[in-house]
């Protein structure tokens, strides 16, 4: 799964990114823009020092100097503890909030310069958003909720209801279209939220902790359905979560935030194997690393690499540790590792393998 995704991402890297944020700042308080400017000049452009200055001034620097790109068709997950500025960041991108500094481009368009009219147009056609607590309109039926974005566009009742039914089927809510939100379970409500955000067929899909308010079982179910929908629709997605397991499961790339800063961006494997600091390491501590770390991380380039024995399959470079362990659990000798072309490139000592898993498990 992960390989074809990353290749899809790398393919589009040359093209214009769907979202390009550079040095994005969001500051809460009075006169945020000028205060940020002052702080940046005073600190000589250093983001951390500037943030400290702002805090000393009684301001809240919720997003600090964030720079990242989201590519077409990828699931870009923003992960961090609650209060780390994730929601604030996508609200700046969707202009639900005004940022204090930096630039945001969507498909190459400077979105900070967009007029109110252009913004409405963008939201009607290009952007969709799903909320943590669903944000359903309590006085409307499921059908009217889902059809609402189309109604805003001025579509007539028949057209918009037909389209709404399509999306309602897509999220598996057929038969509930005349219910009111209060009559639905949490999982069903979020399906409505997802359907509504997809009704206008947006290219860019924001999801702000869409599954965090749900029970674990329902959450897993919706995650799977989400991946199913995405495999058909191929949206460009910014997905927010505070749950590392969810991030690793869904993401093509993950951005990790702490106190408003993005401290690492990378694929799930990179995040798990090469955490930039203890904060990130701490996140992946409880994750079953066997499922995310690859053989490459424990392989040693031995002087003499024995050819793979008959009957015992060699390990592949991109195998997860868990799979590797399963396939060589009975041997006590180093096992050969082969690359894509089947060439033997190193060995793994089963002891190292077990030790790696052991360490991660504690």
């Amino acid at each position, binding site marked *: 799964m992960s390989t074809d995704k990353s290749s899809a991402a790398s393919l589009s890297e040359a093209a214009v990114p769907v979202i390009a944020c550079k040095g994005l700042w969001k500051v809460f308080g009075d006169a945020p823009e000028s205060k940020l400017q002052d702080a940046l000049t005073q600190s000589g452009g250093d983001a951390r020092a500037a943030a400290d200055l702002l805090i000393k001034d009684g301001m809240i620097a919720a997003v600090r100097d964030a720079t990242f790109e989201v590519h077409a068709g990828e699931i870009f997950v923003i992960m961090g503890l609650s209060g780390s500025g994730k929601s604030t960041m996508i609200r700046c991108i969707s202009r639900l909030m005004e940022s204090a500094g930096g630039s945001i481009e969507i498909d190459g368009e400077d979105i900070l310069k967009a007029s109110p009219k252009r913004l409405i147009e963008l939201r009607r056609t290009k952007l969709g958003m799903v909320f943590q607590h669903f944000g359903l309109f309590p006085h409307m039926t499921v059908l009217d909720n889902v059809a609402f974005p189309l109604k*805003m566009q001025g579509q007539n009742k028949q057209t918009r209801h037909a389209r709404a039914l399509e999306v309602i089927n897509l999220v598996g809510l057929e038969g509930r279209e005349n219910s009111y939100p209060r009559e639905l379970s949490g999982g069903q409500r979020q399906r409505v939220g997802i359907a509504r955000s997809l009704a*206008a067929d947006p290219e860019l899909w924001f999801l702000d902790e869409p599954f965090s308010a749900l029970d674990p079982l329902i959450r897993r179910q919706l995650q799977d359905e989400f991946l199913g929908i995405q495999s058909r629709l191929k949206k460009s997605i910014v997905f927010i979560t505070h749950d590392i397991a969810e991030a690793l499961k869904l993401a093509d790339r993950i951005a990790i935030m702490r106190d408003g800063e993005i401290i690492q961006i990378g694929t799930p494997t990179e995040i798990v194997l090469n955490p930039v600091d203890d904060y990130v390491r701490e996140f992946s501590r409880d994750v079953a690393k066997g499922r995310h770390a690859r053989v490459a991380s424990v392989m040693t380039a031995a002087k003499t690499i024995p050819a793979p024995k008959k009957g015992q399959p060699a390990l592949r470079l991109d195998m997860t540790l868990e799979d590797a362990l399963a396939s060589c659990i009975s041997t006590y000798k180093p096992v050969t590792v082969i690359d894509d072309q089947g060439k033997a490139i190193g060995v793994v000592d089963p002891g190292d393998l077990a030790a790696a898993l052991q360490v991660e498990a504690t």
Partner: protein
Amino acid sequence: MLTAIFRESGARAAGLSLLAGVICWILVPYVSWLTVWPTAWTLPTTQWIGGGVGWFLELMKPTGRGLAYLLEFPMDWTRLTLVNTPWPMTIGLVTALGWYIGGWRLSALGAVGLAFVLASGYWNESMSTLSLVAISVPLALVIGGAIGLLANEYPRFKGPVQSVLDVMQTIPTFAYLTPLLVLFGFGPVVGLIASAIYAAPPMARNVILGLERVDPEVREAAIMSGGTRTQQLFQVEIPTASQQIMVGVNQCLMAALSMVIIAAVIGGFNDIGWEVLLTMRKAQFGQALLAGLVIVVFAVVIDRMSGALAQQRQQHDKRVVWGLIVLGIVASLLTWGQLPNVSDYAFFDPSAEYVDRSLGAFTAANGAALDGIKNGAMFYMLLPLRIGLDDAVLTFTWGFDWTAGMTLGLFAVAFAVGLLLAWRGHVVGGILTVVAVGILHTGVSQLPWPFVMVGIGAVAWVSGGRRLSIICVAMLVMILLSDLWERSLLSLYLCGAAVFACAVLGALTGLLCAVSPLAWRIVQPICDMLQTIPLFVFLIPVLMFFQIGEFSAFLAIIAYAIVPMVRYTRHGLTTTPEDLIEAAVSSGATGPQIMREVRIPFAAPTILLGLNQTILYAFAMLVIAALIGTTGLGQSIYLALGKADVGLGLAAGAAMAMLAMIADRLVQGFADEQRKALGLNG
């Protein structure tokens, strides 16, 4: 740490008050202007306001009179329509409306209520009143709604708008009437406009509140769906806030009804409020009670029906609605021209006469007992509080005269108790005991002004800091300089006595209701009823038994103002978080221990808010009670209305509003303090 500081500042404030009291005590015999502010030193504020506002009103008068003239048309039309619609039709429509809103219950309520009104013979008067409400409420809804939307759309205005609404809530009802009287001339239009002005703030408040409470994600969902601001507002935010807005409609209706009835004191309109006033003045209490009941019936019907709109409700069969309407039409057609004049229905006149006769017999038989109650309360409670023990204790009242020796003894005891308390660690309590005894000895109405200012300033400091303290003292200085000081103290005394009684009785009742569900089942409908009854009606029963005078006013204020105290106390005591109770139970606490150690401390902020409401209610009723004889600001406002004296009316009204605001802020401050101490909402 925090509590230590708080205690310390509390002790300092109490000490300061005591010091001011002692200095005043010593100086008063030599410096008379400490108690009686010389008229020569006052500013002619009343005249200034009268002149300034009077000039403005004169300027606006042509416009006002024009508007009054224009408003008279819709008013007359509505009245003629309502009065001339055959009653079977009206009852049919109201019953149908009741069904539509709330099924058979409300439908039955409407039918029975209107049948009662019909049978009472007050149908036409009621329809006159209703026509005023019918015009003023839409006005109030539009004005209030527009203000609410404006405040919501332009956050800059929100703060100022809310302060204005706060102030409007504290301005006494009669004070509105005087300038309107000058502007629009005598007549029902004044009542109409006054009630529109009076009823708009609750609407505005609830619109603001409702829109504020719209879930931010719902708001964002509307934006992200690509709605324009208008689309967001009208298709998402307002419908989402509709329940809160309907609460506003309900409050607006009740306020309008209340004001329309109060405005009857202006006269000139044959409405039900006027009927109450008239019969009360003629001491026809049976009829007054009957007319009062008609008002209550209207209030209840309007309140329950509009209240039901603010709740989740299920659909009721529409066919019944049409059936009831058709029934009304058919009945009207069948009886067309044959119905006797509605004013001739007088099914309850015998009952009214019976009430009068029985009341006569009762007062004749129990006059001594009633006088005993009244005089007891006056001589032993109200009078000492008003003029102090030294003046109130006379041979005529207490059987002996107050002597200097008694003063000495009283203070000796007070100091002893105070010292004991201080020694036990309750420094504030100790000082306050001495101060309280001092106040009781002097009498509230004769307190030296420096003491009042220092005392209130100090309390304000403790409650809300320097800013509040300065504001409070500035307001008091304004009152002092405006020659309204004595009247203010009189109002303060009566209000204070009533609030004190409410606090004690209300807290006890609330406690009882919190402990016993049975008690609450009995008390709750009484509270509901008391809160629905327009202010005016409270005067009837107290007058019946205790005639005109301060004691009747005192009782009327208590009857009206006690409700929030009961409600909030019970609510506070019964909504302690379950886990706290469980923790206490598992620590082995008994029921009374849980009450004392967990429930009561936790309920304190809520109870304080109840006290706050009680104070505001008491001030509101104080003015109405001027009709049955109080002294002080209320009386001035009422007199000003009679003389169309804008200056006096507004100045006294403003003084009253200031007193109410001071009390409001002080209590709110303490409630906030408590809440913070408990870690509730920050």
